């Protein structure tokens, strides 16, 4: 692979907000600015008023430590901040307090990795570093930036804690990038530091090149979903240029998610000089082994460990358990469910997993919701499995009631409302069976030489009862009736 022509090289810089913090990175303003009146969650520090000074949020250090441990990075024992200087209206001080691993600076943690699996092939995505920084304010435009008559600045976001995860340029395809981000999102969720489903909680910059050529940096990718799309576009663009014999320029490009294209912002010679230098208003923070050990001891179970445990405890396949643990809420739901009924064993464990990963997940994806957005309770899935296994409903019917279950209705309520109880009354089924035989002489004739033709008759009975007929009893009755007519022996 690696020697192949047109080999794609991708490195990602992922910025995530630590939404689970109560306060901003350097002041005591609320971190939870979403939905708030613009410029209401601000103070002298986060709007950079003259004379104000930053003071570190210790919880942010703990959260970053959690993530660094979960990603297997080496945490630097002395943490200090740098100023990144540039003028922009979203910057309250016209510099951003960040960390820097050059000019005498150090990142929060160096190295680390995330293992991804693609087409049952495993690969370690090696990380360069993670570091903490403050989020700038939010710029609000009327319509698109280009045509808006004004720019409004909302400083509620200013000073919110971001953590940046920088990979080495080792990602070879948009699919790998997608898998990497999926795993990263999962680890962040398990670390309980952030909810990445919040709008604007994720921003990604991607460095993309075709090996041997100049790279471009694509900025402003504002969700994990967009990343794969932006990468695909940029790779095609670069390959097309090369095909036409053009040279690629080292440049910064902007992802326009409306038009789904990248646009050149500036080329290398116009790159900003950020004049990084130490932020001396913050004293270095010492992170000792004792602290790291304490955070480690308190660190919740991570997805990889959980997957191994689920395989062992519930006899699941690697494929099932890996998928199940990806979303912590789904995995919690699963464990709550299967443990709530003592009669459950390996068959039910598997059934529960299938319902969750197929029908429920599909519905959630279509609705763009998470399991906690719904009223679905684990006990409903337990009931569903029991109804099926006790022959009270068919799998087919079960699939049709998932939507109502999401609204929180119990299965008996739904079946009652829909009249979808299984019909096992033999007299009634006999009546339907006779009707079907009368109405379909050709099929009955067919039954003489084709043993499978009986299925068509059973299907007719099911149709008459709108799927409510018990398939086992129906089959027995049909066999009996055909025997009586001397069609089969």
């Amino acid at each position, binding site marked *: 692979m690696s020697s192949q022509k047109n080999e794609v090289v991708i490195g990602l810089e992922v910025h995530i907000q630590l939404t689970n913090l109560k306060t901003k990175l350097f002041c005591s303003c609320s971190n939870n600015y979403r939905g708030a009146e613009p410029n209401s969650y601000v103070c002298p520090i986060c709007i950079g008023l*003259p*004379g104000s000074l930053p003071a570190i949020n210790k919880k942010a250090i703990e959260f970053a430590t959690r993530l660094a441990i979960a990603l297997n990075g080496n945490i630097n024992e002395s943490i200090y901040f740098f100023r990144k*200087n540039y003028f922009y209206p979203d910057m309250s001080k016209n510099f951003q307090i960040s960390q820097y691993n050059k000019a005498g600076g150090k990142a929060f943690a160096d190295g680390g990795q995330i293992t991804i699996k693609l087409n049952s092939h495993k690969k370690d995505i090696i990380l360069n570093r993670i570091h903490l920084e403050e989020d700038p304010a939010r710029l609000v435009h009327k319509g698109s930036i280009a045509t808006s008559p004004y720019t409004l600045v909302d400083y509620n976001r200013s000073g919110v804690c971001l953590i940046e995860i920088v990979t080495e340029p080792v990602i070879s395809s948009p699919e790998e990038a997608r898998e990497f981000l999926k795993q990263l999102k999962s680890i962040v969720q398990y670390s309980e530091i952030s909810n990445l489903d919040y709008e604007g909680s994720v921003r990604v910059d991607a460095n993309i090149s075709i090996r041997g050529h100049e790279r471009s940096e694509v900025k402003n990718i504002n969700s994990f979903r967009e990343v794969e799309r932006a990468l695909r576009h940029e790779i095609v663009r670069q390959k097309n240029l090369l095909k036409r014999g053009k040279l690629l320029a080292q440049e910064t490009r902007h992802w326009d998610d409306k038009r789904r294209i990248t646009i050149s912002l500036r080329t290398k010679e116009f790159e900003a000089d950020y004049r990084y230098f130490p932020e001396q208003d913050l004293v270095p923070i010492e992170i000792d082994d004792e602290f790291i050990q304490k955070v480690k001891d308190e660190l919740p179970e991570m997805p990889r460990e959980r997957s191994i445990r689920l395989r062992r405890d519930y006899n699941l396949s690697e494929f099932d358990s890996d998928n199940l643990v990806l979303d912590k809420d789904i995995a919690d739901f699963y464990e709550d469910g299967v443990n709530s009924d003592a009669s459950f064993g390996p068959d039910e464990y598997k059934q529960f997993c299938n319902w969750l990963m197929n029908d429920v997940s599909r519905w959630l994806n279509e609705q763009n919701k998470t399991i906690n957005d719904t009223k679905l309770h684990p006990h409903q899935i337990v009931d569903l499995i029991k109804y099926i296994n006790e022959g009270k409903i068919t799998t087919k019917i079960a699939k049709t009631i998932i939507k109502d279950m999401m609204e929180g209705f119990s299965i008996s309520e739904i079946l009652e409302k829909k009249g979808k109880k299984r019909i096992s009354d033999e007299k009634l089924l006999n009546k339907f069976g006779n009707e079907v035989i009368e109405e379909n002489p050709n099929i009955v004739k067919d039954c003489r030489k084709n043993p499978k033709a009986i299925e068509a008759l059973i299907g007719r009975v099911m149709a008459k009862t709108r799927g409510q007929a018990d398939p086992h009893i129906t089959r027995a009755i049909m066999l009996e009736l055909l025997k009586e007519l001397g069609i089969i022996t």
Partner: protein
Amino acid sequence: MKFYEYMGYELIEKIKNKELSIPELIESCFHRIEETEQILHSFVALSKEKALEKAKSLDKDLEQGKKIGQLYGLPLANKDLICVKGFPTTCSSKILQDYHPPYNAFVIGKLVEQEGAIHIGNTNMDEFAMGSSTENSCYGPTYNPWEISRVSGGSSGGAGASISSGQTILALGSDTGGSIRCPASFCGVVGLKPTYGRVSRYGLIAFANSLDQIGPITKCVYDSALMLEIMSGKDPLDSTSVDMKVDKYTEELSKPIEKKILGIPKEFFGEGVDNEVESAVRKAIDKLESLGAKTIDVSIPHLEYTVATYYLICMSEASSNLARYDGLRYGNMSDNLSGDVYDVFSRTRGERFGPEVRRRIYLGTYALSAGYYDMFYIKALKVRSLIKNDFVEAFNKCDSIVCPTMPLTAFKVGELIDDPLQMYIADVLTCPVNLAGIPALSIPCGFDSNGLPIGFQIIGDYFDEKGILNIGYQLEQELNIYRKMAPAAKGGK
């Protein structure tokens, strides 16, 4: 004697004994300002109404036997870069015209809100504290009360002049490379730059944040000791403030100094130091010896590099600290809003910053730029640690270092303003103290042949404000010139 001729601690006694009411004191102080302000121009804004209102309310509380704090309504002149809630705080810059901070600086909270000082107004300064003469103020210079054709020193020139002319009893200054000690020296008053981290910088508008410290300017050492006692201590909002026990400085002043070893650094008496300054300082050292102190020679071998190092560091930091002034959120924006946001930012900053501030922003930006960073900024940091080590070594041999504060006495207004390099060199004996982060006190020790005050500098080891205040107090009592008022205080020249 007029009230303004008394020391702060004496006035406190008078107020306690009901010989004087707080409104009387504040009114007399505003009367004094009216008498002298047209000549001196120490203040950029006054708070007469509020001050008198507070004086009355403190007086009433005192009548009713309530506690009103240790400062008993003494008037406090604040430097125009320390935030006072709701009061214009402008750094003597056009770019911050009409800026009213929504919060009080830590020191204002301590001195005014907690201990009952009365804020009477903000004093003039070099724009953003950049200068040694207060000529770089957007409001024009503050004149020296000893001779009004001369500068008051800087950057806290308004504070120095307001004390030496009796316009106020207490004043706050800030010191980045000598901005408290220079005006104290030129105006013949006491100024103290504390150890970096001793006093919270929260609410001090930054010039160079790794060097800035707030400190008192007063007529006598006791008053400075009293202010420092109140202002010092850990503030959670300033991470560089140090959580260390605050000494009872006022109680240590009268201790004998006979066992003290004073270091005399030969480099501080070298070329460029005026003969009259040197001789006055040497005489003062003799006095200290007569009080029993021992003297030894020490060396600060890297002194010759300090001005270059100091200016590289303070300009680099300033270029970043002052980036926030773009007119967007507060302060003053250009009247011409044409072009894009960068055009407006550039125009605003070009129009609203004065020439010295612009010069320092240009140079600082240059020094931090890619390709120059290692050559200038990193190198300056290395030299800074060498200078620090010089002091550490010196303090292995002595308790405190004694030397002149300024190599010269107050120069004429306009004399150096067109020669920035000469002006920078005037900081040579004060800025090494800021680079090392140690404390230093300046007290008047005599006059030159023009009748201009000469400053005596006592430099202490880290957090040894106690030691330098003790030596300063003993010398002050021995010299006994601290009650001498500047001529401007007798109706001007």
